[in-house]
């Protein structure tokens, strides 16, 4: 049997079959090597890395305090809750779903923590209870998505309102700050070297995310479901269980982030984390994770986290804040998604002439 292009498959707009190229004779070795190198540099991660280096260089040039260890730790600590949730959001979006309720869950968990402490519940118990609330809330999302079959965008949009509402019910217009000193210290003081607990948790989760997504069977299943849910189902993957697990974990980590947030600020209020969901999703999408699922990597998301944090920090140090920061990130998001298209467009225009 000869390796030839399937006529059925070829109707899709996929690039021509490379197997055909082998039939047409080997390409010059040099050309192939160049192509491989080009692909590496032109890959999404490569592009982000270059961008990141530019930002770091610019920050270092414009602001003397940028490279101080203190600033480096601070810039992470200031957004640590968002980037922790961005890790699990990567999984959710890779799985071709979305969770808009994460920030509200952060608020709910933090407020529940404050409320429980106010009721005299011992701190460790309260923390466990909040983590449990997170899992419960995530599982609640998961139930509507996997069992009832509603789109996750719809379910989590409703719970974006719902969880926030519950947080409000718990604290109303108060702000609660009766946390034990050790809890606040945990959130505000360095634990190991210059790193506070939240950063250590983030690094641990980061390693875990890389390992799970790249090397574990579960990660493989997440990708396959994102690529093609039916293929996963026909392969005997328990799609509902994977999705349920993802949403539960998303709730759990959002709750954890909420607790860390409470520890960092020492006070909880009903509006904690309001609007963070869009920042989190922006980070993940900027990291090259396809909104349609199945494509993207944790490495891209790591780079995107660094880009967003460094960019914000650099702008803050140059006294550019508020809307301009958000606007610049917005433009960056659009541009970064546009560049690959412009490239392929140019390639499309240039190629026929060159190869003739």
């Amino acid at each position, binding site marked *: 049997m000869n390796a030839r292009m399937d006529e059925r498959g070829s109707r899709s707009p996929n690039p021509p079959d490379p197997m055909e190229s082998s039939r047409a004779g080997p390409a010059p070795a040099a050309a192939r090597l160049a192509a491989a190198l080009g692909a590496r540099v032109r890959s999404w991660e490569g592009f982000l890395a270059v961008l990141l280096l530019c930002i770091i260089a610019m920050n270092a040039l414009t602001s003397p305090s940028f490279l*101080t260890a203190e600033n480096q730790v601070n810039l992470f600590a200031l957004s640590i809750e968002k980037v922790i949730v961005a890790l699990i959001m990567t999984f959710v979006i890779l799985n071709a779903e979305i969770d808009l309720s994460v920030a509200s869950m952060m608020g709910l968990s933090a407020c529940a923590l404050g409320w429980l402490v106010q009721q005299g519940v011992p701190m460790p118990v309260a923390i466990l209870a909040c983590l449990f609330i997170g899992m419960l809330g995530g599982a609640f999302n998961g139930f509507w998505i996997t069992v009832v079959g509603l789109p996750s965008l719809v379910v989590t949009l409703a719970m974006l309102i719902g969880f926030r509402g519950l947080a409000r019910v718990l604290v109303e217009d108060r702000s609660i700050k009766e946390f034990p000193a050790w809890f606040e210290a945990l959130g505000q003081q360095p634990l190991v070297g210059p790193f506070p607990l939240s950063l250590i948790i983030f690094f641990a989760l980061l390693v875990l995310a890389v390992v799970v997504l790249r090397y574990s069977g579960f990660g493989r299943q997440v990708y396959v479901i994102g690529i093609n849910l039916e293929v996963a189902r026909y392969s005997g993957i328990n799609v509902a269980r994977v999705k349920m697990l993802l949403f539960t974990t998303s709730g759990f980590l959002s709750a954890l982030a909420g607790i860390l947030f409470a520890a960092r*600020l020492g006070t909880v209020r009903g509006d904690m984390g*309001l609007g963070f969901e869009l920042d989190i999703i922006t980070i993940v999408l900027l990291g090259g994770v396809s909104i349609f699922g199945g494509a993207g990597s944790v490495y891209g998301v790591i780079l995107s986290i660094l880009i967003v944090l460094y960019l914000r920090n650099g702008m803050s140090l140059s006294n550019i804040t508020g809307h301009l920061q958000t606007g610049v990130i917005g433009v960056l998001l659009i541009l970064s998604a546009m560049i690959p298209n412009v490239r392929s467009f140019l390639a499309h225009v240039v190629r026929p002439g060159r190869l003739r």
Partner: protein
Amino acid sequence: MKFNKLLTLSAVVAALGAGPAHAEVMAEKGKKANLVLVPKFIGILVFDQAHDGAREAHEELGNPGTLEFIGPTPENSVAGQIEIVTTATTQGQDGVMLSNNSGDQIVPAAKAAREKGLTLVTWDSQIPSAEGEQVFVAQVDFDQTGVVMADMALSILGEEGGDFAILSATPDAANQNSWNAAMQNALQEEKYAGLNLVDIVYGDDQSEKSYNQALALIDKYPNMKLIMAPTTVGIVSASKALQDEDLCDQIKVSGLGLPAEMVSYTLNGCAPEFALWSFVDLGYLTYYVTYLIATGQIEGVEGETFNAGRMGTYTIHKDPTRENGLRVLMGPFSVYNKDNVEADAS
């Protein structure tokens, strides 16, 4: 100001300030201090007015340092303020003037700033626990705000009183919450017995939400006679809602508002009486306090007296509304009605 009905509170203040006597400090000009003025968020007129006041003082004092006006976005106010204070610390600024919108959530960042030697003065809205804050420049006495609100309600509704509701900003706004609490306290008094507070609702300082909340109040409480809105956004929205519904005869609006924004409603009787203070003056005074502390001319401790340019002499006192705080009380309250609102509107 001369037309205003002044509620000068100096008598109250003098009674409270029983600390050791300090000589009045006259500001030495031309010292360098890089200062940052942080509003609750960008896009609200009163904060820009405060900026104008601060700039005026900045030029007057000939500070060769910088004055930055940096604010977060409304949807990201808390995290944004924390980030700004932290960044100011990293940058090595000399002082931060903060209209705190983050409640006690700002405390860790504020403490860190203080540890690095920054001067941290709050204005307009305080840090509730006073931790990390040196002095709060209070526009008016917060307990007094409650009394003023109650007085305005009484003067609008008359002796027999009636039902009224509060339309506040967000449920998390520290100053609005203090004022609402102070008002509820004041209502205990005998003379306000006729005033019956039926509800507190929140318009989140958004025009559209405040407007809808005002309409909902009307439907919810058919006997309601007054909406008290201690927020500049809420008060105009409520006034407009009542005007649009042709209900200005039956229900009135009062609270805290800008004369420029309220003039038409005051003249047509929708909002016969409301109060506010000068945000320009507040910015000016805040700048003076911060400059003096940051340049080491005063320490920012209880009992110090200083001269604040065109505004005269002020003293740092214990803040009677908080356990540990210090404050400089600006005052006075200006209460506006149809007689004086036009003059201040321009």
